[in-house]
């Protein structure tokens, strides 16, 4: 793979060795930076929503009443749906004239005219995709958080309750610190997942407008397949892999440290 990245190769012509040219090109490629920045922006926006939202839902449903268990099951349903299928579902819901989101907002009197959700404004598109992805993966963090909350020994909690600690006090002083490992883990998983986002943007915005919503993986895909710049695509994938790896290692160090 590293070898491929050092070549200029278009499938039709045999590869020719170009040394580090692909990497140098990448740094001067403005679209590469646009994609990278957009991916980071998406990651920075969606991660806190997923974490805080997932944690609140976990606190809400951590009891074992039948309603809480039922809610847990329901919130988890979208997680098992494919990201492709869910993106097509939301592509329809967010469609400006055929979609139910605009219909509902118009009926409720929140907006006066249909909003062009997808592919016209980069920020609005980004938020539309974020909403759909939050819907889809919220349950994932929730399940892990619920398990972590359940793993807290009863005694610890009971002691706090005997001391008269109110609910939010217990959350802050006991539940959050004791589930820190899981919080770090879920953050890692969702950061990596967001950095590698592809399906949702490919389907919902197709990178529009003007490739402003093309994520990094999207750009690797564009270069490798429609443009057939395979060597360049491979170089970009390696850069991406290194970035993801760096995040992973950083997070692992954090986790290690929090254990000692």
């Amino acid at each position, binding site marked *: 793979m590293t070898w491929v990245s050092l070549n200029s190769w278009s499938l039709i012509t045999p590869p020719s060795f170009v040394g580090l040219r692909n990497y140098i090109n990448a740094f001067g490629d403005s679209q590469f930076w646009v994609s990278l920045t957009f991916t980071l922006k998406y990651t920075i926006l969606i991660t806190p929503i997923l974490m805080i939202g997932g944690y609140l839902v976990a606190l809400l449903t951590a009891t074992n009443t039948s*309603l809480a268990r039922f809610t847990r099951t329901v919130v988890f349903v979208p997680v098992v*749906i494919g990201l492709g299928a869910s993106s097509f579902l939301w592509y329809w819901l967010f469609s400006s*004239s055929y979609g139910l989101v605009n219909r509902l907002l118009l009926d409720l009197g929140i907006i006066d005219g249909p909003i062009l959700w997808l592919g016209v404004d980069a920020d609005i598109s980004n938020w539309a995709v974020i909403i759909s992805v939050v819907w889809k993966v919220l349950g994932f963090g929730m399940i892990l958080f619920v398990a972590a909350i359940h793993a807290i020994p009863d005694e610890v909690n009971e002691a706090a309750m005997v001391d008269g600690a109110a609910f939010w006090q217990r959350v802050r002083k006991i539940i959050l610190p004791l589930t820190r490992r899981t919080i770090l883990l879920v953050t890692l998983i969702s950061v990596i997942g967001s950095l590698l986002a592809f399906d949702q943007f490919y*389907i919902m915005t197709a990178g529009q407008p003007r490739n402003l919503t093309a994520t990094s993986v999207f750009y690797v895909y564009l270069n490798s397949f429609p443009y057939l710049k395979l060597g360049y695509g491979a170089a970009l994938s390696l850069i991406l892999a290194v970035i993801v790896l760096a995040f992973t290692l950083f997070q692992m160090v954090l986790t290690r440290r929090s254990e000692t």
Partner: protein
Amino acid sequence: MTEQTVSRVSQDYAIAPGLRKGKRRSVSARFWSGRTKYLLAAICVALCVVMLAPIVFSVLASVKPTAEASAVPPTYLPTELSLDSYQRLWNYGSGLPRYVGNSVLAAFLTIVFTLALTVPAGYGLARFPIPGKEIIFVLLLLALIIPYQALLTPIFLMFSNIGLTNSVIGLAIIHTTIQIPFSLYIMRNAFEAVPKELEEAALVDGANSWQVLRRVFLPTMVPAIITVTLFAFVMSWNEFLGALVMLNTDQSFTLPLILAAARQVTSLGSTDWGMLQAGVTVAIVPSVVVYLLLQRYYVSGLLSGAIK
């Protein structure tokens, strides 16, 4: 103040014995007490509605008559039921059965490959005195860290050299590689959980390792095998990017790809919304049904896979 605390404590103890049998309840037992109970219940219900609404509306949209499915503004509920959209989906391209068949085959092969590789590998890593097996295990898990999305270009090149592009087998191989680290982890842990005595008893009785694997381990491995199968199925059934890159001919498309193609089908290049939602429904239903039936394995698999 003191009185309150006392009554609170006594309340706690009054509740505690009844809840003892469910050993995991008490962390949050008092999340839901007093007046807030109703508020929280209402939030739960609202949450369920929000989570289910998109799916319900999508399924409803798929049974609208053709004209209504692309009406502006859209209707919430179908005014009359019709299977037109499914009819069109059925006949689309090479026909829905072909695409569902491809998806099922890919998922099936992924399951077979994954089990065929990870059952013996898990057995070996858990039970045989292989030098440096911890290192081997960690190296195999490392594949989890390197995102397959970043490897697709080279994999594509490799596969096109050996003629595995545009083939469901090639796709299944990719899906297997995605699935192996997780499955191997589950398998090794399951093998390690089997008591050594059981295995030794069988060996004393003259069984060889193959017989031990089949007679002693496999029966106790059923939950792990179900978990691995379940995850392999859901992943393969849903996976989009790998299929998009590997499959270029209509004949080899899987279900998620057909949705992408179905988006631009009508004569003017606009979307056949009814058919798209019919496709979404067909794509969603199997994973949701499988999840609801095997929820226990799904959740336990997720927990053991993620927390390591």
